[in-house]
C-alpha cells in the first residue's frame, strides 16, 4: 500500500514542479497535472478497495516522527478512503474537463488545481485542528484562483465575495482553535474528543470552530456568496466546488462534531434541516441552471449535515447512510455541472439541446434520480435506512421535514428535467465536445457503480441484481434495434416472467399479475404500430413493468417500496413522453413521490426500527398487537397508495397524464398502473383490517373517499370535451368504486374491487386504444371536431360500443356483474350514506359514456374526415382481443372470480356467494349470466326478424338527408350537436366541478414559490451584506444555542 500521505505529497510536489516547467510547454504541464491527479486518485482508490475488502487496517500516519499532539497526524479509514477517491476522481475528471481553460491560463492554474485537490484531501485526512485551518486556507486561496478560470466576468466579483466571507470564517476559526487549544491543551481532534465539550462555558471556543466549519458548508441563509460562485464559475470548477469541496468540508465538520460530543448533534440537525428546506424552497424560483444546481448543492450538504446530527441513532449504519447521500450527491452534482458546461444557454429550458444526444439525456435522468434518492442509487438505500432509524427513535418531525424538503427538491429537479425533454430548442446542435461528454459518462458510470456497490452493502436486496430490473435495463443496450424487435422481446419477457412465476402466486396475486403482466403484453401488441426505433420508450416501459412484477411478489417492506419506486420512475418517463406531457408528468411524479414518501414513512413507522420486515405478517402483527402507531401506519400507507389510484384530492395529476400520454401509453398508465395502488390497498386492508384514530374508523373514511371519487370523477368526466380526458376522469370514478368496494371490508366488497380490477383494465385499455386510434386518424382529441366515424372505423366503433355497455353496467355484459356484486356488498355493510353518492355516480357514468360514443361515431361526419381509414391494425388487434375477453367474462365471470372468491373467504371465514353451475347466488339475490345473455339474445333476434319482416326496402340515405324543419343542413359542423353536450347538467350540478382541489394544490405551490421569491431577496449580491449575514448567523445561532441550553 502506498501511504495516503503521498496524495498530499504528490499534489504539492507536482504543484511545485510545475513551477519549473517552461510556461509555453502547456501540453506537458497539463500531462504532468493529469498524471499527478491520476496517481492521487489511484492511491485513494487503492485504499478504498483494500479497506472495503478488509485486507488492510485503517492507518494513522504520523508526521515529524512524533506522536500527536506534538505533531500532526493523518488518519485514513474507510470513510476517508471513499471520500478521497471521490475528491481526487472529481479533480482528475475536472482537469480533463477544464483542459482548454487550464491551458489558457497556463501552468499556474494547473498548480492551483493541484493544490486545491491536495488541500481537500488534506482536509479529509488530517486529525489536527490547526492543520485543518491551514488546509482550509489553502482551499480558500486555491478557490480564489480557480474561480478566475471562468470566462464569465462576474466570476471575479463572486470570488471576491467569497474571499471576504472566508476572511471572517478564518478569523472565527482561528480564535476558536486557539481557545480550544487553550482549554484542553491539544490541537489533536482525538484529544479533543477525549474531553467532551458541554454546550456551555468553554464551549464557546468549540462553538466558534464548529461554526466556522458550518459556514464553510454554506448554511442557509448565510450562503449567498457560494451561490454566486456556483452561478459564475467554470462548470468544471463548480463541480469540484460542489462535489469535492462540499464533501471535504462536510467530513471535516463531521470529524469535529464527533469530537465535540453528542450534545452538539441537535444543533447540527437544526442547521442542516434549515439549510435543506430553505435552499430547496429557494431553488424553486431559480431560472439559471447553475444557480439552481448551486441551491440544490447547498441543500444536499444541509441534508447530510442533518444526517450527521442523527449519528447517535444511526449507529453502524451512519457511514452507509451519510456516505450514501454524500457520495451520490458528489457524483450527481459534478455530473450535472459538467453537463451544464456543455449547454450553451443558461436558462433551464436551454437544456433542451441535450436531446441531441440520448446519452446525455440518460445521464441527466440518472443524476436527477440520484439527487432525489430514487433506486437503484445509494441515496435510495440511505433514505430507507435513515427513515427507519428516525422512526425507530421517534424523531418524526425530522422525518417529515426531510421528506418535505426532498419532495420540493424533486419538484424543481423534475421540472428542470421536464424542460430539457419537452421544451423547444432554438439553437442549433452545438456538437458536444467528445472529451467533455466522456467526463460526464465517467460520472454516470460511477453513479451506477455506486448504486451497485451500495445495493451490495445494504442489508436489503441489491436492486441491480433483480432479474426484472436487469431485463428493463437491458433495453438501454438494445436501443439501436428497431422498435418491433424490442417490442417482441418485451412481450416475450412479460409473458415469460408470468409463465415462469405463475406457480408461486396466490389467487389475488394471480389476478393482479395477469392484469399487469399479461395485460401489459396485450397492450404492447398495440405498440407494433410505431415505426423506427422509438428511443426512450422501452426502458421506462419495462422499468414500470419490472416494478409491477416485483410489487406483486414483494415479501418484505423493502421489496415493496423499492418496486413501488421503480414503477414510479418508469411510469414518469413514460408519461413525460406524451406530446404535451410535461406539466402532467411533473405533477404525476410529485404526487407519486409524495405518496411514496408517505409509504416509506408508514413502513418506517411500522417497522419500529427493525427493517426490513415481512410485509404481510409484519403489518398484521402490529395491527393485532394494537400498537398505538398502527392506525397512523394505516393512514400513511393508505394515502400513499391512493396517490396512485388517484382518489379525489390526489387526482389532479391523472387527467393530464392520461390524456397527453401516447396512444399505447394511456392504456398502460390507466388500465395497469392505477392497479398498483389498488394492490397496495388490498394488502393494507387484508393485513391491517379496520383501524381507528380516535373514534373514526379509517376504512369508513376510505369508503367516503371512494364514494366521493366515484361521484366527482364521473361528474367531471361529463363536462370534458377531450375524449382522453373524459376517459381519464372516468378512471378516477372507476377506481373510486374499487376503493369503495375494498373499504366496505366484507367479502363481496373485495370481490367487487377485484372485479373492477379486471373489468376496468379491459374496458379502459380498450377504450383508450380505440380513442387513441381515432386520435391517430383525425389528429384531434376534441370530440366535437369528430363525428360520424361509425362507417369509417367500424372495428373501433364496436370496441367502444362494447366498452361502454360493459362499463355502464347494462346487462348482459360484464359491467353488470360488477353492479350486482356491488349491491350485494352494500347490503352486507352497515354504512348507508356513502351509498347515496355511489348511487348518483352510477347513471352519471352512463352520461359521459354516451357522449363519448355519440360525439365521435355518430352525428355528422366532417368534410376533412370523409376519407379516413380504420385505425392501424395493430391498434385494432388488442381491442378485438379485449372485446372477446369482455364477452367471455360476461358469460363466465366464475372463470376468473371463483378461486379468488374462495381465497377471500379465507379472510372472512364466510362464503356468501354460491357458484352453482352457471348461476351465482348470494345471500340476497341471484344472477345467471348465461340465462340473461340467452334471453336477451333471443328477444333481440326475434324483434329484429319482426322488423325485417315489415319490408327490407329501406332506402339508405346520407348524412344531410334529415328533416331539418324543411330546411337543409348548412355544414356538418353546425349540424353536429356535440360541444357542451350536457349543458343542462352543468347548469344544475356545475357547482360540483368547481376546481377546489386544483385550487388548493395551486395555492400550496404558489405559497412555496412566493415564499421563495420573497426570501431570495436576502441575497442582495453585495459582498458586505453577505458578510453581515454570516456574522448575524453566527450570533443568532449562538443565542439560540444559549437559549436552548438553559
Amino acid at each position, binding site marked *: 500500500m502506498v501511504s495516503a500521505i503521498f496524495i498530499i505529497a504528490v499534489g504539492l510536489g507536482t504543484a511545485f514542479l510545475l513551477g519549473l516547467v517552461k510556461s509555453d510547454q502547456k501540453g506537458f504541464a497539463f500531462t504532468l497535472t493529469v498524471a499527478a491527479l491520476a496517481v492521487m486518485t489511484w492511491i485513494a482508490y487503492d485504499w478504498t478497495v483494500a479497506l472495503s475488502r478488509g485486507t488492510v487496517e485503517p492507518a494513522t500516519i504520523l508526521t515529524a516522527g512524533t506522536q500527536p499532539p506534538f505533531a500532526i497526524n493523518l488518519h485514513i479509514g474507510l470513510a476517508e478512503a471513499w471520500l478521497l477517491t471521490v475528491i481526487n476522481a472529481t479533480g482528475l475528471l475536472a482537469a480533463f474537463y477544464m483542459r482548454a481553460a487550464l491551458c489558457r491560463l497556463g501552468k499556474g492554474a494547473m498548480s492551483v488545481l493541484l493544490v486545491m485537490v491536495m488541500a481537500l484531501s488534506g482536509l479529509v485526512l488530517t486529525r489536527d485542528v490547526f492543520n485543518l485551518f491551514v488546509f482550509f486556507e489553502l482551499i480558500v486561496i486555491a478557490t480564489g484562483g480557480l474561480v478566475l478560470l471562468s470566462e464569465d466576468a462576474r466570476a471575479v466579483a463572486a470570488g471576491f465575495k467569497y474571499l471576504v466571507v472566508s476572511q471572517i470564517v478564518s478569523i472565527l476559526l482561528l480564535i476558536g482553535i486557539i481557545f480550544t487549544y487553550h482549554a484542553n491543551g491539544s490541537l489533536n481532534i482525538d484529544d479533543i474528543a477525549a474531553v467532551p465539550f458541554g454546550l456551555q462555558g468553554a464551549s464557546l471556543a468549540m462553538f466558534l470552530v464548529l461554526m466556522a466549519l458550518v459556514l464553510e458548508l454554506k448554511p442557509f441563509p448565510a450562503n449567498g456568496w457560494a451561490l454566486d460562485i456556483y452561478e459564475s464559475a467554470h462548470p468544471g470548477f463548480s463541480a469540484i466546488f460542489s462535489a469535492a469541496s462540499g464533501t471535504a468540508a462536510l467530513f471535516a465538520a463531521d470529524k469535529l462534531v464527533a469530537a465535540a460530543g453528542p450534545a452538539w448533534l441537535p444543533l447540527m440537525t437544526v442547521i442542516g434541516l434549515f439549510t435543506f428546506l430553505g435552499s430547496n424552497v429557494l431553488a424553486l424560483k431559480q431560472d439559471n441552471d447553475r444557480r439552481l444546481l448551486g441551491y440544490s448543492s447547498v441543500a444536499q450538504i444541509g441534508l447530510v449535515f442533518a444526517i450527521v446530527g442523527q449519528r447517535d441513532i444511526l449507529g453502524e449504519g451512519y457511514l452507509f447512510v451519510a456516505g450514501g447521500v454524500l457520495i451520490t450527491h458528489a457524483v450527481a452534482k459534478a455530473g450535472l455541472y459538467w453537463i451544464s458546461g456543455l449547454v450553451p444557454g443558461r436558462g433551464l429550458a436551454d437544456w433542451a439541446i441535450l436531446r441531441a444526444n440520448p446519452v446525455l439525456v440518460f445521464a441527466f435522468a440518472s443524476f436527477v434520480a440520484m439527487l432525489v434518492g430514487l433506486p437503484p442509487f445509494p441515496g435510495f438505500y440511505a433514505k430507507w435506512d435513515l427513515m427507519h432509524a428516525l422512526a425507530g427513535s421517534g424523531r418524526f418531525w425530522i422525518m417529515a421535514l426531510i421528506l418535505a424538503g426532498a419532495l420540493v427538491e424533486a419538484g424543481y429537479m423534475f421540472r428542470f428535467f421536464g424542460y430539457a425533454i419537452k421544451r423547444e430548442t432554438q439553437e442549433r446542435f452545438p456538437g458536444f465536445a467528445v472529451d467533455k461528454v466522456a467526463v460526464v459518462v465517467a460520472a454516470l458510470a460511477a453513479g451506477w457503480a455506486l448504486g451497485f456497490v451500495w445495493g451490495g452493502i445494504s442489508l436489503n436486496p441489491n436492486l441491480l441484481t433483480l432479474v426484472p430490473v436487469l431485463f428493463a435495463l437491458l433495453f438501454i443496450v438494445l436501443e439501436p434495434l428497431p422498435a418491433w424487435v424490442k417490442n417482441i422481446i418485451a412481450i416475450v419477457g412479460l409473458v415469460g416472467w408470468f409463465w415462469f412465476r405463475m406457480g408461486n402466486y396466490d389467487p389475488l396475486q394471480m389476478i393482479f399479475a395477469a392484469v399487469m403482466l399479461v395485460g401489459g403484453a396485450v397492450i404492447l401488441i398495440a405498440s407494433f404500430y410505431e415505426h423506427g426505433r422509438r428511443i426512450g420508450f422501452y426502458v421506462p416501459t419495462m422499468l414500470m413493468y419490472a416494478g409491477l412484477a416485483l410489487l406483486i411478489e414483494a415479501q418484505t417492506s423493502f421489496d415493496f417500496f423499492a418496486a413501488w419506486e421503480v414503477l414510479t420512475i418508469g411510469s414518469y418517463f413514460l408519461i413525460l413522453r406524451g406530446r404535451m406531457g410535461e406539466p402532467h408528468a411533473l405533477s404525476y411524479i410529485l404526487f407519486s413521490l409524495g405518496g411514496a414518501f408517505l409509504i416509506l414513512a408508514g413502513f418506517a413507522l411500522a417497522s419500529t426500527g427493525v427493517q426490513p420486515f415481512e410485509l404481510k405478517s409484519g403489518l398484521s402483527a402490529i395491527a393485532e398487537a394494537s400498537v398505538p402507531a398502527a392506525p397512523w401506519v394505516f393512514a400513511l400507507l393508505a394515502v400513499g397508495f391512493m396517490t396512485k389510484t388517484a382518489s379525489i384530492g390526489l387526482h389532479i395529476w391523472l387527467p393530464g397524464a392520461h390524456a397527453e400520454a401516447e396512444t399505447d401509453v394511456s392504456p398502460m398508465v390507466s388500465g395497469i398502473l392505477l392497479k398498483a395502488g389498488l394492490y397496495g390497498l388490498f394488502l393494507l386492508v387484508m393485513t391491517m383490517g379496520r383501524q381507528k384514530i380516535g373514534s373514526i374508523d379509517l376504512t369508513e373514511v376510505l369508503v367516503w373517499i371512494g364514494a366521493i371519487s366515484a361521484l366527482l370523477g364521473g361528474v367531471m368526466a361529463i363536462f370534458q370535451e377531450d375524449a382522453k380526458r373524459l376517459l381519464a376522469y372516468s378512471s378516477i370514478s372507476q377506481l373510486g368504486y374499487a376503493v369503495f368496494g375494498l373499504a366496505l371490508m366484507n367479502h363481496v366488497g373485495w370481490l367487487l374491487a377485484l372485479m373492477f380490477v379486471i373489468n376496468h383494465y379491459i374496458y379502459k385499455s380498450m377504450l383508450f386504444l380505440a380513442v387513441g386510434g381515432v386520435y391517430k386518424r383525425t389528429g384531434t382529441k376534441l370530440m366535437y371536431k369528430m363525428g360520424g366515424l361509425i362507417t369509417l372505423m367500424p372495428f373501433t366503433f364496436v370496441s367502444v360500443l362494447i366498452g361502454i355497455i360493459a362499463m355502464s353496467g347494462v346487462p348482459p355484459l360484464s359491467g353488470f356483474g360488477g353492479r350486482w356484486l356491488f349491491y350485494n356488498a352494500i347490503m352486507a355493510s352497515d354504512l348507508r350514506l356513502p351509498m347515496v353518492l355511489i348511487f348518483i355516480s352510477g347513471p352519471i357514468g352512463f352520461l359521459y359514456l354516451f357522449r363519448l360514443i355519440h360525439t365521435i361515431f355518430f352525428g355528422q361526419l366532417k368534410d376533412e374526415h370523409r376519407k379516413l381509414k380504420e385505425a392501424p391494425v395493430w391498434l385494432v388487434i388488442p381491442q378485438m382481443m379485449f372485446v372477446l375477453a369482455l364477452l367471455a367474462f360476461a358469460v363466465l365471470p366464475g372463470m376468473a372470480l371463483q378461486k379468488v372468491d374462495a381465497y377471500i373467504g379465507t379472510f372472512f371465514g364466510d362464503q356468501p356467494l354460491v357458484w352453482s353451475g352457471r348461476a351465482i347466488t348470494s345471500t340476497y339475490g341471484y344472477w345467471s349470466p348465461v340465462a*340473461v345473455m340467452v334471453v336477451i339474445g333471443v328477444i333481440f333476434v326475434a324483434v329484429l326478424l319482426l322488423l325485417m319482416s315489415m319490408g327490407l326496402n329501406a332506402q339508405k340515405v346520407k348524412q344531410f338527408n334529415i328533416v331539418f324543419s324543411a330546411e337543409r343542413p348548412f355544414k356538418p359542423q353546425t349540424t353536429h350537436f356535440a360541444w357542451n353536450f350536457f349543458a343542462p*347538467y352543468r347548469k344544475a350540478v356545475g357547482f360540483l366541478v368547481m376546481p377546489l382541489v386544483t385550487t388548493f394544490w395551486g395555492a400550496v405551490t404558489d405559497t412555496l414559490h412566493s415564499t421563495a421569491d420573497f426570501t431570495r431577496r436576502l441575497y442582495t449580491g453585495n459582498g458586505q451584506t453577505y458578510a453581515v449575514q454570516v456574522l448575524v448567523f453566527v450570533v443568532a445561532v449562538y443565542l439560540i444555542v444559549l437559549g436552548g441550553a438553559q
Partner: protein
Amino acid sequence: MTFQWIQIPYALLTLFIILNYGMLMTALIQKIGARVGGRYGIPIWQNYIDLLKNIALRSKISHGVMFYLGPVFRLTGGIGLILFVPTIYGSVMHQNFSFAGDLILALYFVFFGTLGMALGAAESGHPHSAIGVSRGLSQVTAAELPLALGVFAISLQYQTLNITDIVAAQQGSIFNWTLFTNPLATVAAMFAFVGTMMRAPFDVVLAPQEIPIGPPTEYHSSYLALMQTNRVLYPIAKTVIYMNLFFGGATSWPEFFVKIFAIYMVSVFIGVVYPRFRVEQSIQFFLKWGLPVGVLAILMV
C-alpha cells in the same frame, strides 16, 4: 328455478296480455285527458289503428346499421324488462324468466333500451335527436336516483333482492304493502316513477315545439311501429316493478289491471296539473326533494 320449454309459451301469453292491456289503457288514459279538456278524444282502439297504419307504410329509409337496430334495442329492452320480472305472484305461468336475475337485473336492464335507442337516434345525425338524448339522459340520471335509494331501502327492509320474495313479504293484508310499511321509500321511488314516465312536468325531452319530439325525430314507418309497441309495453313493465316492490304485487290479472291503472294514473294526475320543467329544473327538483326523501328512507330502515 330453472328453465323449462313450457315457459316460452307462458311468457308469450304474458306478453300478449300486457301488450293489449297497454294498447287499451294508454288510449283510455288519453281519452280521459281529452275529457278533462272537454274533448271527445280518440277512439279506444286508435292505438291499434296507428300501429297498423305504421306497419302499412310502404317506404322507409335508413341512416345506418345502428339507426336500424335502435328500435330493436328499444323493444328488446321493453320486452326483456317484462320478462325478467314476475308478473303475477303465485302464478307459475307468469313468473316469466325471472330466474335469470333479481331486482338489480331489472333495474339495470331499464337502461338497455334507452342506450340502444339513444345510439340509433344518434346515428340519424339529426341535432334534435342528440339534444333530446342529452336532455333525456340528464334528466333520467337524476330521476333514477330516488328510485335507487328507495329500492335500496326496501331491500334492506326485506333483506333480499329477490322480487318474488319481496312480493311474498307484502301478502296477507293491505297494510303489509311497502306503501304502508315503508312510506318514505315508496314516496322516494314515486318521484322516480313520475320523473321517468315522460309526462309533464318532466317531458321536456320530447318538447314538440322546439326539438320536434326529440330522439325519435327521424324514426317512421315500421321503426315507429316497434317504438309504439314499446311505448305501450315499457311503461307497464316499469309500473310492474313499482307494483311488485311497493304495492303488494298482483295475485291475479284483474288485480294486476286495476293496480297498474291506478299507479299509472298517478303520473297522469300530476302531468295534467303541472307545467313543464326545464331539464336543469327537473334535475334540481329531484336533487332537492327526491334525494332527501330517499336518504331519509335509507336512514330510517
